[in-house]
């Protein structure tokens, strides 16, 4: 490879392929390469600064997936598993949570305020969810929230509304930590909804135990105009199972996950596959992003990964996969509502205390109306999310409801993040205040697929 070849500008560093360099540009680029080489370091010409940065924050670090436990096979592979019953459709328009739901929300709200929020800034920096935070979530019962009683869970009926309320309350503390906390439970919920008896009996005991495995729903792929219903990851039938190939991105806690649910196209339809970590051909790479960093996002490489015939989760005609996508988007909507509420709760006292021109900035309509619009759109997001969750709980078609909720939560959620920073001015731009983190986090709504599910 010639020097000129390696100095071609396009295709990297966010530079379009059509860009060209003139001679001065080549000189600058060469200087830049020198500056980046470790030659300078060996010669002691650069101050050592990056010593304690956690490895997960650095790209390009690829390793095999975590060596997980052995999930002991149990149950009959062909038999359908236990299913949570659909909640009865009440017929009365009502915005009041049930007593159980309110109780749950109160507990999770406290967890979010006392545990998640204080840990958020550092977890964002290090891209790791602290053990104590995850443990606290486990104690509250987050992982088994979506499971029916017969499988070790807490509900008799489908709990999508409770799931939405919990996700919202948790994200009020921190989005990244909420995703990290909810990711294993999302896989458990998926097993409860679509798993065969064998899959449920093989995997769920671990999820209802104290030794909860990290697990992740891997649907996103790093391609532009990504359409989750048409993943590029493929599954091919073999004599005794399937061969998976592809690349997944934004997988929460990918480095430690012991079980993945991976989306791949089989015979022209998207299908969910259960893939245990440690399987040969599976590699994980840190994939730190703009936000949701505490979730330890990773890329998952699948190269000729073989899985057994009973690794398919749910139907192979694409229906299970589509349902999973919708429930996952619903979870992201609920999370977005929580972050939006955090912004509103933060800017409200701020604009009343911050003075300019001799009075609180809240006394100016341009400031006050921004807060009003945050409140209006936030409630819009919440109502659309609740409607979709209620329909999901009742077992109704949620295709359109989820699409509308996602559209609104993506658009208005980002606007809320943007206005949250703007209302604090320069102070919003620095890490002394959490609004810049919420700004980065809120961009995830509408971009992310999978990872969480309610």
């Amino acid at each position, binding site marked *: 490879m010639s020097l000129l070849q390696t100095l071609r500008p396009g295709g990297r560093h966010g530079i379009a392929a059509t860009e060209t360099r003139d001679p001065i540009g080549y000189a600058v680029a060469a200087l830049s390469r020198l500056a980046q080489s470790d030659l300078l370091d060996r010669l002691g010409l650069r101050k050592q600064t990056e010593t304690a940065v956690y490895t997960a924050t650095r790209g390009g670090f690829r390793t095999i997936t975590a060596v997980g436990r052995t999930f002991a096979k149990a149950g009959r592979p062909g038999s359908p598993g236990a299913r949570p019953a659909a909640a009865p459709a009440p017929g009365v328009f*009502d915005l009041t*949570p049930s007593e159980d739901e309110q109780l749950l929300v109160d507990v999770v709200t406290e967890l979010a305020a006392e545990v998640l929020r204080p840990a958020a800034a550092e977890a964002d920096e290090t891209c790791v969810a602290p053990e104590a935070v995850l443990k606290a979530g486990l104690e509250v019962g987050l992982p088994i929230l979506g499971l029916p009683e017969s499988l070790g869970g807490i509900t008799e009926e489908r709990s999508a*509304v409770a799931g939405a309320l919990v996700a919202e309350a948790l994200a009020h503390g921190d989005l990244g930590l909420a995703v990290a906390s909810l990711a294993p439970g999302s896989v458990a919920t998926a097993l409860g909804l679509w798993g065969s008896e064998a899959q449920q009996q093989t995997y769920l005991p671990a999820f209802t135990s104290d030794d909860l495995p990290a697990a992740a729903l891997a649907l996103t792929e790093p391609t532009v105009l990504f359409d989750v219903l048409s993943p590029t990851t493929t599954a091919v039938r073999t004599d005794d199972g399937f061969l998976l190939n592809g690349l997944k991105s934004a997988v929460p806690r990918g480095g430690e996950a012991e079980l993945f649910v991976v989306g791949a196209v089989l015979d022209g339809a998207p299908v969910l596959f259960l893939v245990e970590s440690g399987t040969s051909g599976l590699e994980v790479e840190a994939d730190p992003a703009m936000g949701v960093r505490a979730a330890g996002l990773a890329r998952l490489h699948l190269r000729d990964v073989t899985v057994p015939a009973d690794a398919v989760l749910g139907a192979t005609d694409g229906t299970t996969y589509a349902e999973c996508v*919708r429930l996952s988007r619903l979870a992201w909507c609920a999370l977005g509502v929580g972050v939006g509420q955090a912004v509103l709760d933060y800017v409200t006292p701020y604009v009343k205390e911050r003075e300019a021109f001799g009075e609180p900035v809240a006394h100016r309509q341009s400031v006050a109306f921004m*807060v*009003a619009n945050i409140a209006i759109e936030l409630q*819009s997001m919440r109502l659309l999310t609740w409607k979709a969750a209620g329909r999901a709980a009742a077992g109704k078609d949620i295709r359109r409801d989820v699409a509308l909720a996602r559209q609104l939560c993506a*658009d208005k959620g980002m606007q809320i993040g943007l206005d949250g920073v703007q209302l604090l001015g320069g102070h919003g731009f620095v890490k002394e205040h959490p609004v810049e983190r919420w700004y980065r986090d809120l961009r995830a709504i509408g971009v992310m697929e999978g990872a969480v599910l309610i």
Partner: protein
Amino acid sequence: MAINLEDPKKFRPLVGQAHQVAMNMLRPISRKYDKAEHEYPKELDLLAAMIDGLSESGASEGAGAAGVKRDEAAPDGAVKNGTNLASVMSIAEMCWGDVGLLLSMPRQGLGNSAIASVADDEQQERFAGVWAAMAITEPGTGSDSANIATTAVLDGDHYVINGEKIFVTSGERADAVVVWATLDKSLGRAAIKSFVVPKGTPGMSVERLEHKLGIKASDTATIRFEDCRVPASNLLGSPEVDTKQGFAGAMATFDNTRPLVASMAVGCARASLDLTRELLSQAGVSVDYDRPGLTQSAAAAKLLQLEADWEAAYLLMLQAAWMADNRQPNSLEASMAKAKAGRVGSDITLSCVQLAGSLGYSEAELLEKWARDSKILDIFEGTQQIQQLIVARRVLGLTSAELK
């Protein structure tokens, strides 16, 4: 109790009826009265009689503005879906038919809402069946309705009213006008009271009818009061000037009427969306709700965005009405609903014209009409900016002196 945002099951027949009326009675005459501004839509008399009949037979849960009076609490604390929800849902359906004609419906005026909201039992009975228009705005006073200059002076057992009111919907056709006037301007907003002035009362005259951008089927009058004497018993609510309670009494009307105006915007916008969806579908464009808008056509992506905004306005409207049904204070939510419905009403109807191109712009379709009709809904009963002001004050906990 369980969170459920589906349309209330018990109002399905009511909404179905309203939809049939809108489709079969209002739509066929919609363009006719858009063209013939100020002509009385005589077809509505028959319709009003039919609605009255439905109300009396108990078959309807109180369609229309007359039904906004707060109900008694439901027994045993059960969640109620009552007249407020019924009203917003049926009015939305009627406005899917035609906003201007809905506003012209006899006995369904905003003045009736005022009577239902603040009148005492004796007055409720006395004014039952009266078609009442609402007169608040003056040439020098729009959104700052605390600043009205029309006066009412007690003289024996009558009040003498003097002043000029503009933008009075159904001001010429209604049986009576509910007029806002001050008992003593120096006492500020607390002294503002509402009076029922029957049509034909000496001293009250309709000066002119406005020519408007939209809702042309509805007459919008300027009314002058010159030494107009009304019985003291026509003052709605209490004649006491309670400076502590202030404006609250008169303003309570708005908590009830704003969700109704939101429902008008919601209904009108849905008319645009329904037609545009069909026109786009004929052109081969439809929304795939499972796929991201960005991977679909720009028109489909736009439709997706409009539908999401519409759904938000609709649910905020239901929320405000549901709170009223369950006797929860809903001033904040009523303003949220009107702010959202008002602005997305304009965005949706105007975007639908754009999506449909010159077909949408032409009088050959009703899309251009709905884009004109919708604008007033972001103005009357409190402009977008007034709603934002109310929401901001409530959310921030600021007084009207702090946040002007």
